């Protein structure tokens, strides 16, 4: 599944593919493809590319579990999950269920006014848990703002993620306690930080690896392209994990790329692979493979986890303005949690007791998150001036003093009034 020169070079939505999603998608994107066609009509080269593409096959996904929950063999990647026990599978299932429950609670808390905003990961649980559980403790994660499942895998207390969405801080956890960097909102910037960190690992002679998360939208950012260049040139031990959830707010992936995203790696000189992002086992296997490459000095890898953002971009978004329900319904049939449950049930790896217990654990988590958020105090006013500089700054000191005097003037007035 690595890139080779004969790989398809055409917009992924213009033909039925293994993803099995294209029925509704092709319908949705018919007019968009037409637009792209007009644009590309300007040059003969592009027409040639498009015509040639018709003879090639749609890129295949690495898939180990079908949407129906059937385990399928894969000669290349089976080895990377050979050691996965039934207990591990139940663990992956538990991770996904709890992450989804946490996510749903956060969405509800936003609706109740407890959070200013929430970016839901609904639908992307397998991509995040599969890749997150492939990591070692000494590996380092550079997330976007939607990696709640990866944070869970790293042992970051989920309530820590909510501070910035409630508006009490702009990050707020120590990245080095869990090797999980702060959420990055400006799209794609963290890919360069990940690359630099990975360059540092090489200089230290360590065998840790770095994973950089980003999305289909970020793939258009110059910083992502530059991180591909730097990591390739320095052979940095970094895995670029692109969750292609099909939508960058309202823009479908064909507004970002003419080629399947994983094929971008080819031009930079490292392998790219597309994995079924709703298949937790496949995501685990492919990420482990990519991390092993990094550890053994083979450099960067691009993993495109082909998945779907089931919810809105954030709680401020209204997807009904740009996409249809039929598309979501098609993806619901491939739900990451559902397919692992089917597999656990048919293979007798989990009983009713397990599912009931997990249900109870989910509710406990939801309650804990709710209570923690409601109890989260507003920051002290003077937090504005804290940590602006590590070594201090005369202007910050001066303005803090002015602010204090200003605040104190109200206190005096209030006392005088009584």
């Amino acid at each position: 599944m690595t890139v080779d020169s004969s790989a398809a070079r055409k917009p992924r939505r213009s033909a039925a593919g293994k993803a099995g999603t294209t029925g509704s998608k092709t319908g949705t994107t018919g007019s968009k493809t037409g637009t792209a066609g007009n644009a590309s009509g300007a040059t003969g080269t592009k027409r040639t590319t498009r015509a040639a593409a018709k003879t090639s096959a749609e890129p295949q996904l690495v898939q180990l579990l079908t949407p129906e929950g059937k385990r399928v063999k894969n000669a290349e990647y089976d080895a990377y999950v050979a050691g996965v026990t039934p207990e591990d599978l139940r663990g992956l299932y538990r991770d996904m269920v709890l992450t989804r429950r946490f996510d749903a609670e956060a969405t509800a808390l936003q609706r109740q006014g407890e959070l200013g905003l929430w970016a839901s990961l609904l639908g992307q649980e397998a991509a995040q848990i599969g890749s997150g559980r492939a990591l070692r403790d000494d590996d380092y994660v550079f997330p976007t703002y939607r990696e709640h499942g990866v944070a869970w895998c790293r042992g970051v207390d989920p309530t820590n993620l909510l501070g910035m969405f409630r508006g009490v801080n702009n990050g707020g956890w120590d990245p080095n306690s869990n090797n999980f960097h702060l959420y990055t909102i400006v799209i794609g910037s963290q890919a360069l930080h990940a690359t630099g960190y990975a360059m540092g690992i090489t200089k230290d002679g360590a065998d840790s690896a770095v994973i950089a998360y980003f999305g289909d939208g970020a793939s258009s950012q110059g910083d992502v392209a530059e991180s591909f260049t730097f990591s390739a040139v320095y052979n940095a031990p970094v895995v670029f994990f692109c969750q292609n959830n099909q939508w960058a707010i309202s823009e479908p992936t064909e507004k970002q790329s003419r080629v399947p995203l994983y094929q971008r790696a080819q031009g930079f000189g490292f392998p790219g692979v597309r994995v079924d992002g709703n298949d937790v086992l496949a995501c685990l296997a492919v990420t482990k493979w990519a991390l092993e490459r990094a550890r053994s000095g083979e450099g960067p890898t691009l993993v495109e986890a082909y998945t779907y953002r089931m919810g809105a971009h954030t709680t401020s978004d209204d997807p009904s303005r740009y996409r249809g329900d039929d598309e979501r319904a098609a993806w619901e049939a491939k739900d990451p949690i559902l397919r692992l449950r089917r597999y656990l049930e048919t293979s007798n790896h989990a009983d009713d007791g397990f599912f009931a217990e997990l249900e109870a654990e989910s509710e406990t988590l939801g309650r804990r998150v709710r209570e923690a958020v409601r109890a989260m105090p507003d920051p002290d006013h003077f937090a504005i001036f804290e940590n602006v500089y590590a070594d201090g700054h005369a202007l910050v000191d001066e303005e803090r003093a002015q602010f204090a005097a200003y605040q104190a003037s109200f206190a005096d007035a209030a006392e005088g009034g009584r």
Partner: protein
Amino acid sequence: MAEKMAMAKAINESLRRALEEDPKVLVMGEDVGKLGGVFRVTDGLQKDFGESRVIDTPLAESGIVGTAIGLALRGYRPVVEIQFDGFVFPAYDQIVTQLAKMHARSLGKVKMPVVVRIPYGGGIGAVEHHSESPEALFAHVAGLKVVSPSNASDAYWMMQQAIQSDDPVIYFEPKRRYWDKAEVDAEAIPAPLHKAQVVRAGTDLTLAAYGPMVKLCQEAADAAAEEGKSLEVLDLRSVSPLDFDAIQASVEKTRHLVVVHEAPVFFGSGGEIAARITERCFYHLEAPVLRVGGYHAPYPPARLEEEYLPDLDRVLDAVDRSLAF
């Protein structure tokens, strides 16, 4: 112990010392390795410290600063070179959005000891984008510190201090002064990084400047002295933070202030100095604070730069106008 050397050499020696003393210090940028940088500031460093510590990077400024941030997160202290002032803007996002804010976003858990070296300013007859003075665009950003030495000795010591700083420091090197020589004493006790220095005492008017304009102000003070005017010259050295206490002390004595920089006057550091000194010294001032600097126009082609840049006569003209109030 002191040795006379050009500013470019002084920075080179300072980088060399930092590389020797701290294995976490890295030098990175375009052409900083074998070539030694287009101004030879990093000459010989890669030969002596290897490609792993003196790193020729791909030609991508955002990538240079972005990976430096990652290296800092890993515990390194990168000193990155942006080849010319006008090339910094592809990296502006990483500097403003990431580098400047990381410490605050992590509630103080993460430190960003990154130095961004930028050869800046005009006067060398360069082509477009090679003569700009964008310091105000960085001083405006909380989380960054901005300094600019005016002489070889300061260049040496301020680089040492910038590398030791746990905050990101934008280090503007006045490229037209790269070849000016001065005594550098590598065993001296340096002044604090962000303190201004009186480089010439006077009683009638204060000229405040940094980087390339300090020398010009000293020349202006010489010329004014011939006309019987005693000018004090203040080398600000640091643009963020600005040493307002030092400016205030000088202005309370001279009651006149002229700020000189190459950067455009509009929204420049001179405007900020004028506003704050007016607040602090309202009853001491006998004239409004005047500014001498670039115009609100793109940096002109080289054959016009003499008209654009502050020169002796423009500074003296401002001195006359101030003293005429």
